[in-house]
């Protein structure tokens, strides 16, 4: 594969940069750069902006409204969006459910749900994990029992990201308990307004609230909301998880963190000199920059393989492990760079009318909380330990 950007790629990059310059409001990018939560309104606003331009569904097949960007173009788009501080495209509907519906959904389901994802009618969340089923997802216990033209769902889901904003949830449910666990799972779409559903927030260790528990008590869901065939849900789930891991290398975000850390190291002091001159710090930073350059090429190699083959495969697991650890390492080194100021937890400096002390540089006011929050990235989407199991089995054949 050719690693050099073509003239067309460079022109495309300029097009993305110009788009972001014109369309991305400064107050949103400031919050994104500071690792603060993006509000529901700001996310919906940004989705609408991308939708208007036709870029919201950039990773969909052309026949379903995608653009047909090459892997390199997708990479450029993601890199520039991260560099500009654009909110991430919420993956649950657009990047996770959509590929499943496109591959396995009925024509009616595709025609009903896909446009609603694009125009913001639906905010999707994910009902996969359960309290007893984390890494061992196939052991899930939430049941769906067919009664006439409905399924009746009972059970509990957890770690449902931004469920508090959602009106729809896609769930893995057990429709057969008398077989190998993987063979009795189905994939179903549930309206969160259905009676019998309760969403409870889970506070995370950084004090944030982005994940939830969802309780289902005799929740009646139309049978037409089943995706694909009954008891084939595990196949769809694996397909979805591979797509979830696609893009999880987070090369763009790590690149942005590298640039931010380099800027910070010029203003922070160690022993009276700029931190950038500290040989230990410089070595730590160099190590991460080298790893990022390596990952950029690993990422492109894997994407190139996907585009020539049958889509995402077990190589996604490599990107997930390397990408998540690298992102965490950038947050770790940024925290170190803040020295004493890393102790301050002052996200309120972004609120209007704040008149308290500004301890850390302003875009770093939430950095330590973000460092702790980002410990999640090596846990969610299939923990890195599970990714290693996948590599062991699927790539190494052990």
């Amino acid at each position, binding site marked *: 594969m050719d690693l050099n950007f073509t003239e067309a790629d460079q022109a495309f990059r300029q097009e993305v940069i110009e788009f972001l310059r014109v369309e991305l409001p400064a107050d949103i990018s400031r919050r994104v750069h500071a690792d603060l939560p993006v509000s529901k309104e700001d996310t919906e606003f940004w989705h609408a902006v991308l939708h208007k331009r036709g870029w919201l569904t950039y990773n969909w097949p052309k026949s379903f409204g995608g653009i047909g960007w090459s892997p390199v173009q997708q990479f450029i788009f993601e890199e520039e969006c991260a560099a500009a501080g654009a909110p991430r495209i919420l993956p649950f509907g657009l990047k996770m459910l959509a590929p499943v519906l496109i591959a396995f959904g009925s024509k009616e389901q595709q025609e009903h749900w896909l446009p609603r994802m694009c125009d913001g009618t639906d905010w999707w969340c994910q009902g996969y994990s359960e309290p007893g089923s984390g890494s061992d997802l196939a052991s899930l216990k939430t049941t769906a029992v067919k009664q006439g033209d409905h399924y009746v769902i009972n059970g509990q889901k957890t770690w449902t990201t931004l469920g508090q904003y959602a009106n729809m949830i896609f769930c893995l449910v057990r429709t057969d308990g008398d077989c190998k666990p993987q063979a009795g799972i189905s994939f179903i779409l549930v309206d969160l307004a259905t009676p019998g559903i309760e969403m409870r927030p889970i506070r995370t*260790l950084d004090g944030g609230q982005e994940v939830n528990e969802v309780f289902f008590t005799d929740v009646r869901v139309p049978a037409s909301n089943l995706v694909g065939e009954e008891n084939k849900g595990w196949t769809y789930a694996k397909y979805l998880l591979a797509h979830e891991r696609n893009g999880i290398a987070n090369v763009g975000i790590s690149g942005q963190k590298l640039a931010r850390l380099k800027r910070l190291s010029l203003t922070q002091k*160690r022993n009276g000199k700029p931190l950038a001159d500290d040989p230990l710090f410089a070595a730590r930073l160099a190590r991460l920059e080298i790893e990022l350059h390596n990952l950029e090429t690993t990422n492109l190699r894997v994407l190139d393989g996907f585009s020539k083959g049958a889509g995402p495969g077990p190589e996604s697991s490599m990107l997930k492990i390397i990408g998540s650890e690298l992102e965490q390492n950038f947050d770790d080194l940024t925290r170190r760079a803040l020295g004493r100021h890393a102790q301050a937890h002052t996200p309120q400096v972004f609120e209007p009318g704040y008149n308290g002390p500004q301890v850390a540089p302003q875009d770093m006011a939430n950095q330590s909380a973000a460092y702790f929050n980002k410990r999640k990235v090596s846990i969610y989407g299939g923990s890195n330990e599970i990714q290693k199991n996948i590599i062991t089995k699927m790539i190494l054949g052990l």
Partner: protein
Amino acid sequence: MLADMIGKFIQNDYPLKARITAGSSALGYCTAAYSTMAQLGLIGALFEEEVGGFGGSGFDIATVFTELGKGLVLEPLNDTALTTGYILAQTDQLELVEQIVLGEKRVALGLIENGADYDWSAPETLARQTGAAWQLNGVKTCVKFAHGADALIVSAQTQSTPGISLFLIEAAAAGLAEHPFQTVDGGNACEITLHNTPAQLLAVEGAAYPLIDAAAARATLALCAEALGLMERIKDMTIDYMRTRKQFGSELGKFQALQHRVAQMLLEIEQAKSAVINAANDLQAPTDERNRAISAAKYSIGRIGCAVAEEAIQLHGGIGMTWEYDLGHFAKRLVMIDHEWGDQDFHMMRFAQS
């Protein structure tokens, strides 16, 4: 004996929920708990008999703070008693030391200035003398638990004499403004601005460096011991979780890949414990020897502490990320200890250059 007594206090009278609530209060800790600990003699154990205590050795300090770490105790016995009490004891402020030992007064310490540096050897805060009276001008940052303290000790340079001087300032002194903020591990710190603030010179003008250095050694030892206590608890929590959490039909602790990681955690914590013992043992040694042992300990604790915090969260999975589960609070404090009194890189270089 002392360790058992502190352990019982934590078990019976120091619920973690109350600690977490106090950590995000305006004061950042619980004064009643602080007083109780003083009455139990926890502060007295940090000072020698000549100044009203009944301990004061490196091992006394290490024992107290290891036990406090096991309970994730928030109250600033290090910041407002041990470190400042030592400075005051060395400068014959024995009445104030007595009040500190009894828990009646709390004195905070302001050495760090802006720039986020760990280096406290060159303060820009300026002290001016008019007759016998001193006035200070400058800004101190990250002064832990200054809010609610009765007085502050701050470092400054004077116009006439090179070197560092230390000054005692009443919390209510004119021209002192405190700007408190929350710390990420629960608790409070302040930015302190001083504008023509009246102050009392401690020790000899320009000659406070060795005194600060000795106080820093005590504070750093206490932090290392606290981290050790935190790590012991984190290790126990992780082992318990490995024994009870089931995935794929068996306990997590049955998976060899995970067993080896917990075993590695144990090895690292044992090494950290040895580093703390070395530092406690050398607290009274000649300055260079003492500082090498202190830096060795703080480097070890910084490196191992961050690794243990991250690994324990990873081994727990999602539950380790929640506010409701204890682990995250221990992990936050453990990581933040690397940001006080010099991080692992700072101490590795200080060791290398000594």
